[in-house]
Structure formats: C-alpha cells, structure tokens
C-alpha cells in the first residue's frame, strides 16, 4: 500500500476533529487547552504533508510559526487558568457561566 499525502491529511483531519470534539465534551479547562493543541497538531501535520507534496519548504516554515503561536497561547492560557483556579479552586469550564442571557 502506497502511503500517499492523502493519508497524512486524513490523519491530520482526524486529529483536528478529535481535538475539536474533546473541547466540546471536556469541562476541565486544562484538558480543553490540550484539545486545542491536538487541533493545531492536526493542522501542522497537514501543512507538512502539503509541503512535502508540493516540494515547498514554506509549509514547514509555517509549522514553525504555529509552534510559536501554540506556545504563546499555552503560556497565556495556562496563566489564565492559574489565575482563575487560584481564586475558584476546582472550577470547571461550566462553572464559569455567570455571564449569560
């Protein structure tokens, strides 16, 4: 069986969808952040696959930037989670729903 680019893309898509689904079903903000990471990794895989297919290094470069973005997001996101959980220990995503309507 030839492993074509398509397989990589499918795998990327699966990771993206799993990440997205996880974000929808999990209440732990930390796990939700991890799910976002999963989604980003799915995209990264697609980028690399496309880059390979195209024979273009640009796709890989982009992945590099995505890594940076992911890192920045995680830093800030974890900061937020820390700030919140420090004041509301054990709070889940669903507990943060005072604003509504």
């Amino acid at each position, binding site marked *: 069986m030839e492993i074509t680019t398509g397989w990589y893309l499918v795998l990327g898509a699966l990771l993206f969808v799993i990440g997205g689904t996880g*974000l*929808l079903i999990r209440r732990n903000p930390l796990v939700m952040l991890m799910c976002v990471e999963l989604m980003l990794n799915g995209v990264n895989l697609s980028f690399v696959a496309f880059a390979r297919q195209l024979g273009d290094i640009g796709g890989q470069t982009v992945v590099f930037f995505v890594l940076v973005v992911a890192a920045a997001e995680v830093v800030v996101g974890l900061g937020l989670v820390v700030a919140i959980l420090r004041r509301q220990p054990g709070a889940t*995503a669903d507990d943060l729903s005072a604003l509504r309507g």
Partner: protein
Amino acid sequence: MVELVWLVPTLPLLGFCLLLVTGRMLGEPRAGWVATAAAAGSFLVTLVVFIGLLGKDSDKGERSYEFILFEWLPAGSLRVEAGFLVDPLSITMALFVTGVGALIHLYSIGYMHGDPKYSKFFLYLNLFLFSMLMLVFGNNLVVTFLGWEGVGACSYFLISFWHQRESAATAGKKAFVTNRVGDWGFMIATFAIWSALGTVTYTEISRSPAMSAATGTAVSLLLFVAAAGKSAQLPLYVWLPDAMEGPTPVSAMVHAATMVTSGVYLLVRMNNVLTDDALLIIAVVGGATALFAALCAVAQHDIKKVLAYSTISQLGYMFLAIGSGAYVAAIFHVITHAFFKALLFLGSGSVIHGMHDEQDMRKMGALRVAMPITAATFIVGWLAIAGVPPFAGFWSKDEILLAAWEQKNIGPLLWAVGLVTALLTAYYMSRQVILVFFGEQRWEEDVHPHESTWTMTTPLCVLAGAAIVGGAINLPLVKDWLILEHFLEPIFHHPHHFSSGTTTKIILAIVSVVAGLIGISVAVLSWLMRRIPTEPLEPEFLENAMYVDATYARVVGGAGTSGFQKTADFDAEIVDGTVNRIGRLVMKLGQLIQPTQSGYMRNYAVGVAVGAVAIVAVLAWGLL
C-alpha cells in the same frame, strides 16, 4: 337699483360683525335693536331691489341679473364664483325672508328680555339671516350650499342656545347631523351636475341641454335628499320636532318660515333638471310626509310640538306641489305658510312667555282673556292654516290640491291624501286654539298670564294682516290676478298650467273647504263642547309620532353605537393590537433564542463547531 343686492346679505353680516365685537358692550336692548335694524334695512334694500327688478321687462328676459363678486374656487375647468343671482324667484324668497325675519327680530327684543346671552342671540339671528340670503341669492349651487350649511350651523347654534339643558344641546346636534345627511345629497348632486353639465351656475344649468335620464333622475333624487334633510321630509324629519328646544322666535323664523323652506326653494330653482320619475317620488314622499305629520300633530300636548308637526306637514304639501309640477303653488304656499306659521309660532311664543315658559297645552285654556292680541292674531293664523277662505292658506293649499289632482299617474290618490291632511290640519289646529285660548282655565294658581310687550305684539299684528291678505298675491279667480305666477314664470322651463276646467276647480275648492270645516267641527265638538270623548283622539301611538323617532334612537343608540364601539374596539385591539403583537413577537423570538446565550463556553463552542460544519457543508459540498 338691482345692483344694490350685495347690500342685502351684507347688512345682516355687518350686524353680525358689530355684535360679535361689541355685543356684550351694547347689551340689552341695544344689541337687539342693532340686529333688528340690520334685518329691517336688509328688507328695505330688498324692496328697493325688487322695485328695480319690476322696472325691467319680463318678456325680454331682463329680469335675471348676476353679480359676480369674486372668483371663489377656481380649479381647472371648475370655476365657482361668489356671485348673486337676482331673478324673480330669489327676490320673492328674499322679500319674505327679510320681511318675516325683520319682524321676528323685532319680536325677539321682547321675547329674549333678560336672557344672559341676549346679544349673542341676535348675533346668531343676524348670521342666520345672512346665511339664508346667501342661500337664496347665490348664483350657483356652491354659494347656495354655503348658505345652506350656514343656516344649518345657525340653526344648530340657535336650537342649542340654552345649551345647559341637555335636551337642547342634543336637539341642536341632532338637527345638524340630520341636515348633514341631506347635505351629502346636495354635494353629490352638485358633483353630478358639474360632471354632466360642466357648470354649477344656475343660469348655465338652465341653459344646458338635459342630462341623460338616469343621471337626471339621480341628480333629482339627490337634490330631494338634500331638500328632505333641510325641509324635514320623511324620513329625515326627525330633527324638526326636537328643534323646538330653541327659543320660540327661532322656531318661528328658522324652523317654520325660512330655513325649512329652502329645500323647496332648491328644487324650484333646479326645476329644469328634475325628471318625471323623480317628481313622482317627490310627490309621494311629500304627500306621505304631509299626512304622517298631520297625524302626529293630532296627539301632541306641547304647544310648539303641534306647530312643529304642522310645519312638517305643510312642508309635505309643498313637496307634493313640486312633485305635481306646480312649482308656483309650492312657492306660493311657502310664502303664505311663512306668514301664518310664523304668526302661529310667535303667538305660541307669546303664550309661553305669558305663561312663564309653560308649553303644555293641558295646563292652559281660556287665555283669550288674558292675552287678547295674541289670541286674536293666533286665531287668524288658525283660520289661515285650516284653509278657511279667504285667508291666505286657503288659496295656496287649494292650488296644491288642484295640482295634486292633476298629477298624471296617481293624481286622485295624492289629492285624497292632501284632502285628508287638510281635514286633519283643521282639526288639530282647532284643537290647539281651543285648548289654549278657550275652555276652562287649567293653569296653576301662581301663574299670572299677561299680554306681551309691544315689540312682540306688533309683529303678531303685521303677520296676522299678511295671513289674511297674503293670498292676494296669487288669486286664481282671474287670470291677471295670478301675480306670483306671472312674476315667476321666467324661471321655469316648462311653466305649469292647470288643465282642469273652472268647474272642477270650484268643486275641488268646495270639497277642501268642507273638509276643513269638518275638521274644525270635530274639534269643537270634542274639545270645546266635550261631546266626543277625547281620549281615543289622542292615541299614544300618535302622541309618540308613530315611534319613528324612538326607533331611530334605538337604532342609533343601540346597534349604531355598539357598532361604532365595536369598530373602536377593533381598532384598539385588532389593528393596534397587531402592531403591539408584532413587537411582542420579536421579543418572543428573542426569548426563544435567548437560551443559546447560556453562559457555558462549551455551548458557545458548539456554535462555532456546528457553524463551521454547516459552512463547509454548504461551500465545499454544495449541501444545504
């Protein structure tokens, strides 16, 4: 001299303006004299104009003058001018309007003595006179309509003059609104005439070719609706009995002598557009009104109510005449009726005045002693209306009966109706005279009837004189004596000529006189000599005017009001409710989707996720 016609309405108008500004300053009785002077001046000028007109040659068609003051409503091809038309018909009307009017003004000086709104009364009277003269002298339908509505408005003011009384206020409103129904007909008729003939000016209408039969009949009937409103014909008469709430001079002037006859004037003025079909209907309605009102008058107790129904009945006569084509007879009766009915009303006013505002005839009797002049003049009026020769009423009524007899389709029937009416008229007027002036004294002890002042009795005497000799203007005995007929002739396209032979005329006259005498006799027997029991003569059915008014009131007050209320509720609940409901619907829609704003970020993420899926589905896969 004819050119002075503008002065005729202007004098009362000036009087009105003067009283409007200085009325309260002038006070009693100067305000009354100012108004009377204006009315009398107007009469004198009318006389001058009349003499001037007489100086013109009738055969050359010179007795028709138009004076255009200014363009009133110029709009496209519609040119309505404010102008006067002086011709035999208008001057005839104007003469008795100003004449009787002036007398009633004079009478009111005494009658209104002590009223807090003394000057205002004369202000209204002058305004009324002005409007009436505009009605009469207008050279086109629209100016006439100006006067027409003007008199209506004045009638409203005057009826509800004592507006603190609920009944007076209601009566005034009723008169105006009922008149408006007639006005509706007037307006539509005007539109139709303009549409068909392209003009609203009388002289041009009379020169125009005939309208198509349908239009002509429609116009005629619409004009008759107008006339029925103003002149209290079935079924629009209901306002007139109630109008007696106004001061008695008003009843005399507005609701007997002048205003109510303007319907007759209008139809006579428009004689050349009236079609035969329409005339028949007019005659039938006129006859029916005459009979109906006479029947109602039989059982009234209020001295003025009797006269009111009598007026309606006499107006019915006039329309009977018009319907029979006898326009001159109608005008003739208008004039004589103006004399004797004004006389009767003023007399009744004198009685009411003397009896301290008592109007119920059952509480009168034997007043001839206390009020001799009033009694004498009233009796003259009675004889005139009862058709006793040679009083004025006899001549005009006789002519109408003759005209009815000669009506082409149902002449004898109309004549019979007229005859019965004449009999009834004689009866109920006799009953009134007996109840008021003869028999035993039935008034309360503390009432001290007295004769009125000279300002009130003078007009009575003058009018009594006119009621005696008024018939002279159109005596049928000799051809040359038909002054009125000759005078009015130019205004008719097809002058009416009696076809009956002299014998028929005389027989008919005798029959009518006999009828009158029978009526008087029955009254005398029952009311004076008490030979006939009186109770059956006053059936409740007639006393309540056959419940017509009550039925109207029930319909208007019941179904009408509730219908109006339902419409108003519909407006508030359905129409406006829908607006508010739409607003609430939007709110509801919002509340429906508000739960999506649940506050849970994961729910919000569903929005993003599902939205993404949907957009991808649509865009990339063309799914929808």
